[in-house]
């Protein structure tokens, strides 16, 4: 009897998180957005959001030609888990075109302009959790092509990165 009751309690322990995981997307969908921090983006943020959207569309549509036109010939992906073993262009294209998964929503984009190079950083939703992405775009004439993508999980703010402790509080504002 005690074992049965204990088993029921244990079963509840295991299923509760799953129940919450199923309910979370609908919770988020039902809530209306609050007065959060929404950027009036810079001209470059707007431009590169559009480039990232084009990348995403090419992947979703499994359009290898369109995807390839957005990449340099030597494009590579470097992740935190494989910092010394980049995923080359062909392998990356094959995998994303197979899954047709470009990742989730993009937010918090910042763009650093260094003339012929622009570095766009942002967070993006993913099945395993949010990812911090740094895309290096190379200017080619009037167009831009993605040369390198660096990506790693967002992680916890408590994770100690040298010099990474924020000293100034951010205030609620809108751009």
């Amino acid at each position, binding site marked *: 009897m*005690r074992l049965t*009751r*204990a088993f029921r*309690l*244990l079963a*509840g*322990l295991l299923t*509760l*998180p799953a129940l*919450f995981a199923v*309910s*979370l997307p609908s*919770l*988020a*969908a039902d*809530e*209306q*957005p*609050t*007065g*959060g*921090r*929404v*950027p*009036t*983006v*810079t*001209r*470059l*943020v*707007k431009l590169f*959001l*559009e480039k990232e*959207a084009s990348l995403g569309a090419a992947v979703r549509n499994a359009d290898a030609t369109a995807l390839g036109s957005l990449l340099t010939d030597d494009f590579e992906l470097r992740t935190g888990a494989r910092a010394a073993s980049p995923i080359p262009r062909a392998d990356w294209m094959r995998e994303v075109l197979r899954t047709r998964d470009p990742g*989730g*929503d*993009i*937010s*918090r*984009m*910042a*763009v*650093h*302009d260094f003339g012929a190079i622009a570095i766009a950083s*942002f*967070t993006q*939703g993913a099945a395993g959790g*949010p990812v911090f992405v740094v895309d290096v775009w190379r200017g080619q004439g009037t167009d831009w092509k993605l040369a390198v993508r660096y990506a790693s999980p967002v992680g916890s703010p408590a994770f100690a990165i040298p010099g990474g402790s924020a000293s*100034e*509080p*951010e*205030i*609620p*504002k*809108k*751009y």
Partner: protein
Amino acid sequence: MQKLIQSLLRASGLLCLVTSTAFAAQVLGPNSDESDLVPTGKGWGERAYPAPPRVNENANAAGHAKPSSNGISYHGGPLMLGTTNAYYIWYGNWSGNSATTILTDLASNIGGSPYFNINTTYYDGSTTQVSNSVHYAGSTTDNYSQTAALSDAGVQAVVSSAITSGKLPEDTHGVYFVLTSADVNETSGFCTQYCGWHTHGTISGSDIKYAFIGNPDRCPSACEAQTTGPNGNAGADGMASIIAHELEEAVTDPDLNAWYDRRGQENADKCAWTFGTTYTANGAQANMKLGTRDYLIQRNWVNASGGYCSKSYP
């Protein structure tokens, strides 16, 4: 054993509550109900803060903001009604810069214009509309009191100092613009994420609305639509559009809880970097005349007729 499992169960419940709260703070992505969205190619809205108390009389039975058919919704907060007073705080070194007259003329003439009249399509819970009325109420200077690397808190300190020192009056009907010279940075993302921003804060016990306006000369590719300007000063001409943007958002969403769409975009956000038809003035592009000067000012969102970007209303 049973007590241990019960403890673990309680801990699991707490963890799920924390997780759900954290999830609610993540990005709001697009879903099937996007009838009030207009694609702009911009970033997504983000819920960074808990939802404010619902006080909107127009809210539906579930307590959510009533969706508008014009692509933007009212969330119950106050608007700036009547005449809005614009104050400038010239931060840094503006000596010899024609921006001081170009932008003063802007503030003196934007009220009453067909452009600013767009904001009269916005109203509060009593259906009182925003007025097409802006008064340039004065300015002061600040000689790098918060250094050349301003933080968000530093911007508020600049405004607070101007008010508490008596250089500018304490005015809840005012918007205080901190205009920075080209050698001043704002460390929370000027030039990389934004060109300006607005917010509100309690200063001397009053709810004060203020804005940061960065100098596009610091990052022309990010914060200027063109490398020249109709008034012969690319930086000032670029700031003119940013000032207009933050002003109309401060008027229609001063406390960050009034008018915005389901992605969190305020009225000017929905039309950012769009200018409509333009003409040539002094070798540069312009799209409207305010007073005696030509300016290139971004369009604003009209809250009527289904919603659209425009340079004027009606």
